[in-house]
């Protein structure tokens, strides 16, 4: 068959290219009411809310404020609690007398249509008694700072320390020590579809039915059941087509609780669709960190250690524990040998939108700081950047590699397999490194400034605890796969059909994958952290092998042979030695089900060709990558042109290289935005200044270069198909690579890049600022 590894075009596309998709806002139910959320206009204030005018408007059904919610639905639960977060704080579902960021939900208008609800929202009177807003990440930890949460002694949400070896003694004997202060600014996922929820009470089944755009419908099922005081069987969560996820849709938001509560209380279907302004100000952000790190090396550039401290801005609340800064802290060593490591992270509350994972999730920051430090070492010691990296990369023979500390999932962080030196070699080969270096040098003499950047990364992917899959061979011999990890565009319906088709010996288009409905399998974790392909994909292979075994066993009875003599091919059980002797899968199903009223003909196999299977990976598998870029910068205008962008990835075995390439290029696109444009900006009082796509810029077709991709594979030993996750590898190294390339291009001007994103104007300032050749305070 050979579906595994094929560049199969997607089963999803026919509906989507003809306008027949079904997204959350396309769902309408009879008698459906519409919700508009009234949001805080102040970053930190005590509030009093008067909704009487809004309630009086024709067409308004109800207005909800905090006191209208049941006790269990007032505070958003942390769905991923982690003891490392010592001072967690969750947001109120509707603000209860106090708001802590601009955009925080205060009231919910329910009206006959969206237009009336918007009118009524204007009539809600909120009095703000403002308090000092905590905006500056570093000042937030000073004694004088106001506090985001008055009940806490400071704005510190938690301290994390990650260490191995003895960093201080390594630094004491180092030949070279470089120190950097590096800033990564706040961006956002900004899927093209905003968030939305539709909910109604199903009277026939006596339960709450919720459609939303979540990456984690089972997590939502638990949260909604708790909020409504229902057992989980009385909550069904479904995902229609979802218009992009990018991590930040992997959390439970206040509206995910609010909308079902309103539907239950009013006993009416309700819909809430977020608008783009709300999405920009109130859907979770990520990336703000300030690092003060040092790297110590020997004379030949061998890394002896990394030490220092970084500050992580978690915004006003901690919706997903400490996962982002924890991922940064454990990912800083990257694919390099770092024998001594001691990094402290301060997780800090500010009066800004809460922070949660956005594609990359703490790793782009880690890659950026490590690669910037390596570039500094290279300059100090006069070592070629490629040679310096090669000297420090963990070699293929050293895998599995014990990094020396505990990972995000509580296990000893161990890179399962990899060969990053080979990725680097391949990237250099594609770039034609030596000749390109010579070209850059020659062009520089002609006043043209080109530069090369290189960065390598690891990504912990495919994390546990499990995924469950149900699978059936239908009466017509086709196959149905049921699973819990929903799609936000990753093409699960294609990839997993490929896995099942190969094992069951049926054509690709005979496999139908169902997802996005908590009734399909009993338990699931969700689609995030590059895990669905690895964990669900493995469960698909296990379930398919179970069905194959059963089909061959039944086939053996019918063909009077032993199961070992049989295989599945072209929708049939065939005798390997003589393929003319075969039985259709449809016949196998028919036999396994028997005839109505009669005993099962083959009771040993149970009725039907249906099974469930789950896969629980022992720990993460680590994807790796090496990216390289060639850029040209015009020093007069500071326009940066990315002439070439090369991504060499190791995602283990690939189910569908076409889909994986799409993931890589899309990831690079976000990385380009993170490098040049994407920045959520707050003023000193906490007003967000980037509330439209005119202010919050993302990469367009004019900005993203053509990405040259290659894949080398070191299959993971941790799952049956040897896979590694591919969802974020495209994004992680981009800010590091491009910063390095731009700095290299502008080397004659002594430009020193210490912050992302940097705009062309930032670069222009940097180039013309004689006092400080850095983008340190890029605004």
């Amino acid at each position, binding site marked *: 068959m050979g579906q595994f590894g094929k560049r199969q*075009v*997607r089963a*999803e*596309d*026919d509906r*989507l*290219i*003809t*306008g*027949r*998709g079904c*997204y959350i*806002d*396309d769902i*309408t139910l009879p008698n459906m009411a519409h919700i508009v959320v009234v949001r805080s206009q102040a970053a930190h204030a005590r509030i009093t809310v008067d909704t009487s005018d809004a309630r009086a408007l024709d067409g308004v059904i109800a207005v909800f404020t905090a006191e209208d919610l049941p006790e269990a639905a007032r505070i958003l639960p942390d769905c991923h609690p982690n003891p490392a977060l010592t001072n967690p704080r969750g947001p109120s579902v509707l603000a209860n007398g106090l708001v802590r960021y601009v955009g925080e939900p205060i009231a919910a208008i329910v009206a006959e249509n*969206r*237009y*009336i609800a918007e*009118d009524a929202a*204007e*009539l809600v009177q909120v009095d703000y008694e403002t308090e000092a807003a905590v905006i500056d990440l570093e000042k937030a930890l000073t004694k004088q700072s106001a506090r985001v949460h008055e009940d806490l002694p400071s704005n510190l949400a938690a301290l994390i320390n990650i260490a191995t070896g003895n960093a201080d003694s390594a630094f004491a004997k180092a030949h070279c020590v470089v120190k950097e202060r590096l800033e990564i600014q706040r961006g956002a*996922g*900004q*899927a*093209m*579809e*905003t968030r939305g929820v539709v909910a109604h009470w199903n009277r026939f089944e006596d339960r709450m039915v919720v459609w939303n755009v979540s990456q984690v419908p089972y997590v939502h099922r638990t949260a909604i059941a708790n909020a409504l005081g229902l057992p989980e069987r009385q909550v069904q969560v479904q995902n229609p*087509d*979802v*218009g*992009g*996820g*990018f991590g930040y849709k992997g959390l439970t938001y206040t509206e995910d609780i609010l909308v079902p509560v309103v539907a239950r209380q009013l006993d009416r279907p309700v819909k809430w669709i977020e608008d*783009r*302004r709300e999405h920009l100000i109130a859907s979770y952000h990520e990336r703000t960190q300030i690092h003060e790190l040092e790297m110590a090396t020997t004379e030949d550039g061998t890394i002896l250690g990394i030490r220092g401290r970084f500050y992580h801005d978690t915004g006003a609340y901690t919706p997903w524990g400490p996962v982002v800064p924890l991922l940064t802290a454990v990912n800083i060593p990257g694919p390099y040998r770092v024998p001594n490591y001691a990094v402290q992270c301060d997780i800090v509350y500010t009066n800004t939108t809460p922070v949660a994972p956005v594609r990359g999730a703490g790793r782009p920051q880690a890659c950026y700081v490590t690669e910037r430090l390596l570039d500094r070492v290279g300059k100090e010691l006069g070592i070629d950047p490629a040679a310096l990296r090669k000297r420090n990369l963990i070699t293929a023979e050293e895998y599995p590699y014990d990094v020396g500390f505990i990972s995000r999932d509580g296990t000893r962080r161990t890179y399962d397999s990899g060969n990053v030196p080979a990725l680097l070699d391949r990237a250099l080969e594609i770039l034609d490194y030596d000749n390109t270096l010579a070209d850059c040098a020659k062009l520089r003499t002609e006043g043209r400034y080109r530069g090369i950047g290189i960065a390598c990364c690891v990504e912990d992917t495919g994390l546990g605890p499990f995924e469950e899959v149900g699978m059936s061979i239908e009466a017509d011999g086709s196959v149905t796969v049921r699973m819990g990890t929903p799609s*936000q*565009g*990753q*093409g699960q319906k294609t990839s997993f059909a490929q896995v099942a088709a190969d094992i069951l010996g049926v054509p690709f288009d005979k496999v139908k994958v169902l997802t996005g409905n908590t009734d399909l399998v009993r338990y699931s974790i969700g689609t995030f952290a590059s895990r669905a392909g690895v964990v669900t994909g493995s469960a698909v292979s296990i379930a398919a092998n179970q069905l194959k075994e059963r089909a061959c066993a039944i086939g053996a009875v019918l063909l009077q042979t032993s199961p070992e003599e049989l295989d599945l091919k072209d929708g049939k059980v065939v005798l390997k030695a003589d393929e003319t002797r075969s039985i259709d899968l449809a016949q196998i199903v028919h036999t396994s089900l028997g005839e109505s009223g009669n005993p099962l003909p083959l009771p040993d196999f149970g009725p039907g060709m249906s099974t469930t299977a789950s896969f629980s990976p022992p720990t993460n598998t680590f994807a790796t990558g090496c990216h390289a870029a060639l850029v040209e910068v015009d020093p007069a205008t500071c326009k940066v042109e990315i002439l070439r962008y090369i991504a060499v990835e190791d995602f283990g075995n690939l189910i569908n290289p*076409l*889909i994986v390439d*799409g993931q890589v*290029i*899309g*990831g*690079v*696109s*976000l990385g380009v935005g993170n490098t040049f444009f994407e920045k959520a900006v707050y003023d000193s009082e906490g007003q967000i200044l980037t509330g*439209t*796509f*005119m202010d919050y810029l*993302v*990469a*367009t*077709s*004019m900005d*993203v270069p*053509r*990405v040259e991709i290659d894949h080398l594979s070191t299959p993971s030993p941790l799952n049956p198909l040897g896979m590694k996750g591919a969802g974020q590898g*495209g994004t992680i190294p981009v800010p590091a690579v491009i910063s390095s390339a731009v700095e290299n291009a502008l080397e004659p001007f002594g430009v020193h890049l210490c912050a992302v994103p940097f705009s062309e104007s930032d670069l222009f300032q940097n180039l013309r600022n004689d006092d400080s050749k850095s983008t340190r305070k890029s605004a």
Partner: protein
Amino acid sequence: MNTPSKRTQISITVNGKTYSRDVEARRTLADFLREDLGLTGTHIGCEHGACGACTVTVDGMLARSCLTLASQMDGCEIRTVEGLSGPNGLHPIQAAFKEHHALQCGYCTPGFLVTAAAMLEETQDPTEGQVRDWLSGNICRCTGYQFIVDAVLSAAETMRSETEERDAS
């Protein structure tokens, strides 16, 4: 506050079919298409004209249906993504999007398809630069644009060869 009750009668042709409707003066074309006509292929991405997901053509010109009022459309001909494919199946641009994996989540896709189809009516043999320029008003967060650009260039080639075949026969 303005009284929202002002209504107006319009006659509008969408994908070749004419509709007469009484609409609220402030109703957007996007809401009209999606909710009143049930043509939900047109998606709303930003409601401020920046993302291009809601792009349709009005009398052959590209327009943002989120910034256009239905009441302005009296007598106009609209084409949405649902109107791209004909009796002979998919429009070449739709087929090329599938073939080149030019969509992932599919949410921005209708706007890209409508824009690209309009471009190919005007420019039969575009360069990559022209394609990127035409598409620069549409945001995609999934694909990084590369496969979209490839799809448009490939559709242009298909359409040129179809034209040549027609001319030859």
